[in-house]
């Protein structure tokens, strides 16, 4: 009996080590324990003493670090934030210690970069508004990409590609002779950040941008980054209000300082700081994006269904105003976001449940509404011809529509238990390339196609 209890004690200790690893879920540890026990049973039947059998069985299981690393590779959704996988040979402690200074350096570079044009006479006044609008993403995102490039130790070739893409973006934003009030300027100001954000994604993936898992990690990162950025912006708003108020109380006007230094530099630095926060503080709180998704998916589904019912009931036509296409583009973006973050947090092997059906309802409702809008708007476009704005809005609509339509199809297959959920995930990660291609097309080709209108 004592031999048995000794063995049980050893197994319990081993089990405790397992449970301490975040990348190993409880059920995984159960599965491994079952394996360990089977092995011990076999060895003791072969004539070994239990403690010998235990040692051999543990040894054959492989080192805990190797094991956790393999589990982490396979289940990156469980600890995607933990960037340096445990026991990886290239994760010396010195690097984590230098992490904070490097981040501060990158944030400082981003903050100073936005003041650099001021040295060349392009100060932040309304006259230069379009310069800053075009180039806004070129101040902070290179610093962010550099931070990731350092942290992931990417190769020299990847660094070359990243640098080339940022230069390309800078040339595209500034080389075309665009008038300050042209539509193309606005389009560049919107699309260049998207294009360059996906370039940051290449750095985020450490150059391994073809990997579906790394892409999904980047999607998760994007959602969390947005949330942290919004939180920092809120804090920054409070700081601004106090700066203005307190200085006003002693008769000094701080508005110049706030609008020239505090806001622009703070916003640029916040881009890098939020990224660092996402990376560093992930283990402290639950991922927020999936939680928000859970809350808002039913609400959005209800709203869209109500809209459809009202549309059919009243038989009011959709008022095809100029901005309506953009409004519905944004709606599709939100629905897609809800879908993406539900996917990113989902346990890939769980069976379809009520929430998945709700998600399907949401996607289908958005699709139906969008088709209605497209039908209504086609007439207008053929009547008035293509402008850069309309073409971009229409293109985006079609891209999102394609994505959601195929997602709905895959989702239907999944809820009926015919397709694995991973198919849907793969579809979304592969589709990132389409966004990149479209954003670059708008930035690079639209001004040429539309004669710099």
């Amino acid at each position: 009996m004592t031999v048995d209890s000794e063995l049980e004690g050893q197994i319990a200790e081993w089990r405790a080590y397992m449970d301490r690893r975040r990348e190993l879920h409880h059920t995984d540890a159960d599965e491994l324990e079952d394996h360990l026990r089977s092995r011990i049973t076999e060895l003791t039947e072969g004539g070994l003493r239990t403690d010998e059998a235990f040692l051999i069985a543990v040894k054959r299981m492989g080192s805990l670090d190797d094991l956790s690393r393999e589990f982490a590779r396979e289940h990156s959704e469980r600890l995607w934030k933990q960037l340096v996988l445990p026991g990886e040979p290239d994760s010396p402690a010195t690097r984590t210690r230098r992490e904070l200074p490097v981040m501060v350096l990158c944030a400082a570079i981003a903050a100073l970069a936005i003041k650099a044009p001021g040295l060349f006479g392009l100060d932040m006044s309304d006259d230069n508004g379009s310069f800053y609008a075009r180039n806004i993403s070129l101040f902070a995102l290179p610093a962010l990409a550099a931070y990731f490039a350092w942290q992931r130790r990417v190769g020299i070739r990847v660094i070359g590609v990243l640098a080339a893409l940022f230069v390309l973006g800078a040339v595209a934003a500034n080389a075309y002779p665009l008038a300050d009030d042209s539509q193309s300027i606005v389009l560049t100001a919107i699309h260049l950040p998207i294009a360059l954000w996906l370039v940051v994604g290449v750095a985020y993936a450490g150059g391994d941008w073809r990997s579906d898992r790394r892409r999904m990690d980047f999607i998760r990162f994007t959602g969390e980054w947005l949330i942290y950025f919004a939180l920092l912006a809120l804090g920054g708003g409070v700081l601004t209000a106090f700066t203005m108020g307190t200085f006003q109380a002693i008769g000094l006007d701080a508005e110049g300082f706030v609008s020239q230094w505090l806001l622009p530099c703070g916003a640029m630095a916040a881009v890098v700081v939020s990224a660092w926060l996402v990376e560093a503080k992930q283990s402290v709180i639950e991922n927020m994006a999936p939680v928000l998704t859970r809350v808002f998916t039913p609400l959005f589904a209800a709203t869209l269904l109500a809209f459809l019912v009202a549309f059919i009931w009243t038989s009011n036509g959709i008022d095809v105003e100029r901005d309506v296409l953009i409004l519905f583009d944004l709606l599709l973006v939100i629905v897609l976001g809800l879908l993406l973050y539900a996917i990113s947090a989902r346990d890939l092997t769980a069976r379809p449940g009520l929430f998945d059906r709700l998600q399907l309802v949401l996607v289908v409702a958005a699709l139906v509404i969008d088709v209605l809008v497209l039908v209504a708007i086609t007439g207008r476009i053929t009547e008035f011809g293509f402008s850069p704005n309309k073409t971009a809005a229409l293109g985006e609509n079609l891209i999102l529509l394609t994505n959601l339509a195929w997602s709905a199809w895959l989702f239907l297959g999944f809820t009926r238990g015919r397709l694995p959920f991973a198919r849907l995930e793969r579809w979304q990660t592969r589709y990132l390339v389409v966004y990149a291609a479209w954003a670059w097309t708008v930035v690079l080709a639209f001004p040429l196609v539309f004669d710099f209108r």
Partner: protein
Amino acid sequence: MHITKDLVAASATPLVLGILAEGESYGYAILKQVNDLSGGQLEWTDGLLYPLLHRLERLGHVESDWQTPPGGRRRKYYRITEQGRAELAEQRRQWAAVVDALRGVWSAAPSITPIMAPAWEAGR
């Protein structure tokens, strides 16, 4: 004889799918069967089988559920899916091509065969 890590990794998926194609099974039994089939030549680190099984599950090649046999421990059983069978057939075609090519090389260079063959035997 020691089979290199790369070869072990490359052959893991078709081996596991092939074993599951004969009927549902669990991790330890799969590992034992790999061991038997290869005459002890293929040595896997035990624990690393499970991440592989989970990956196959995520890709939809296998399904799993927990079962408790009467008087036994709770255990996770894996079953191959239709998609997994298709994948197995595909892997089989690919491996057949590789083996054919290798055979061609061995017979084209006859000096290798007679020396190597006894070496393999001796390694056992």
